[in-house]
């Protein structure tokens, strides 16, 4: 393994992303931008996980906000009802999400295509219903307050603090995902995407690999959900709702299926764009839909893969 290959394949994109996280605040005109930045990195973390499942292994999930919900309510319920420290609840939530993904994934990952989509959709709805109905624990549709995160005696509050925490965690999650793709497991997942039968005759335990990546993607979503709840100081069942799941899928597809860097771009576009479009007031939603459609028509592989392909073609000319 020479140094050049190492830099080319994994470290360079990670350093690039870290640089983005560090440099971006220099251009922030106000504290409000830290808030948007933090949200972008939080969603991007969940999108990286979903991209591993959808973009690389080729398995769709329309219920991923369910794991966002598990993570979010872990840091709400744990400290409120049990007095447990928030950071511990964040880890517990991730483990719980992984366990739920294991239990749910074993039966439903046998399904393919549209059938898998509907099964995961059902799972997401189920989580949202539980969060709505178990009012004694979750506060019902009104949601509940989330106590602030305390790390080593430091009470984390303010958008800028969350910007740095979310940014650093995203860079870590980004690097872990890149590493995974450069490993036997990552190659097996990409193989499954293109031909399950060929993967099987080469000795890959397809069911197990799918389950593994489903669990990993659930844990990414869970950590993002915990961050979201801690950052907002408040959580409602909407976090686990169907629209949330669709938004995550849209971020994956818009940024580029199978492009880890695309996850950041997809999340950034769909977090920032609605903020920008508020100046159009009642036309905001319509314009958002229109812009996403235009993106998909002209960059149908997703933003990052389409742009890189265009650049590569342009360089050859």
């Amino acid at each position, binding site marked *: 393994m020479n140094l050049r290959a190492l830099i080319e394949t994994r470290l360079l994109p990670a350093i690039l992303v870290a640089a983005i996280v560090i440099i971006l605040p220099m251009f922030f005109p106000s504290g409000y931008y830290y808030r948007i930045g933090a949200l972008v990195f939080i969603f991007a973390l969940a999108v990286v996980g979903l991209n591993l499942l959808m973009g690389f292994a080729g398995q769709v999930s329309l219920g991923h906000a369910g794991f966002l919900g598990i993570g979010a309510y872990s840091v709400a319920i744990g400290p409120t009802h049990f007095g447990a420290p928030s950071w511990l609840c964040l880890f517990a939530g991730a483990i719980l999400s992984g366990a739920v993904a294991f239990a749910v994934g074993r039966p439903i990952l046998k399904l393919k295509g549209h059938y898998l989509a509907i099964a995961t959709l059902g799972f997401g709805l189920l989580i949202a219903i539980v969060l709505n109905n178990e009012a004694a624990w979750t506060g019902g549709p009104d949601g509940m307050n989330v106590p602030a995160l305390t790390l080593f005696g430091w009470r984390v509050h303010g958008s800028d603090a969350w910007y740095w925490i979310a940014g650093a965690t995203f860079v870590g999650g980004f690097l872990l995902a890149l*590493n995974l793709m450069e490993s036997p497991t990552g190659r*097996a997942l*990409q193989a499954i995407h*293109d031909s399950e*039968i060929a993967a099987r005759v080469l000795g890959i335990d397809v069911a197990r690999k799918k389950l593994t990546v489903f669990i990993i993607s659930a844990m990414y979503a869970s950590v993002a959900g915990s961050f979201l709840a801690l950052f907002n100081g408040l959580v409602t069942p909407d976090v686990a709702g169907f629209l949330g799941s669709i938004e995550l899928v849209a971020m994956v597809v818009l940024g580029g299926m199978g492009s880890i860097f695309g996850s950041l771009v997809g999340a950034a576009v769909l977090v920032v764009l609605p903020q920008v479009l508020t100046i159009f007031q009642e036309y905001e939603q319509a314009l958002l839909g229109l812009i996403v459609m235009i993106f998909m028509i002209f960059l149908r592989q997703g933003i990052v893969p389409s742009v890189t392909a265009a650049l590569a073609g342009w360089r050859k000319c």
Partner: protein
Amino acid sequence: MLILEADRLSITFGGVRAIDGVSISIASGQVFSIIGPNGSGKTTLLNLISGIYTPQDGSIRLAGETVTGFAPDQLARRGLSRTFQNLQIFSRMTVLENVMVGRHRHERTGILADMLHWPSVARQNEATRQAAGVALARVGLADAAERPAGSLDYGALKRLEIARALASEPKVLLLDEPAAGCNPVETQEIDRVIRSIVKQGITVVLVEHDMRLVMNISDRVHVLARGKTLAEGTPQQVRSNVEVIEAYLGVHGSQEAAHALD
């Protein structure tokens, strides 16, 4: 030594007995060809042997171990790999990465080590890359290593599938019509590749329509017709078997052929 034995295999699809009591036994290091007219059940038999279908009747033994009903990945880990008639390429990956997937059963994987990219993972990646490169060179595709697999032409994809299967270091390699759709030059290349595989001690089970290739390269030929065994023997024996000629050409055609020979 018998490396692969199938005993009275049967499978039915919608009332049709696609394979009906077929037994084969293959000695280690042989080229064993399965031929027959279209629809005679050749690919079905291959699917049974490689675990893609589970036989309703009969048993399969691989290197002495009973493996009836085993999944394809379990068989692969025991040294049985195959290629496909309708190509099953990982088209999003590069040519080299396709073959690297073939090394999967020899790689140690741990999800934590993989995500943290421990030095052992990096070392193993390098070993895998080199072994894959060797397998590619054997089928004459070393130059195409970094190209996207989807960009190769048909004949090259056929050889890529063979390289990928070879990378898994199988004891038995099933080739499903490796020369189908290939031009004479590409068929020559396949012939060369198969001979080099056999030289390495790998048993080859070949399903093929190209009779010149089959007769040239096979040690034993097994003839299927309508899901049943019609004949088995050396290429010489099969070629002169009246029933085989009739199965291929029909009774009338075989008489014509006999006249033509006179």
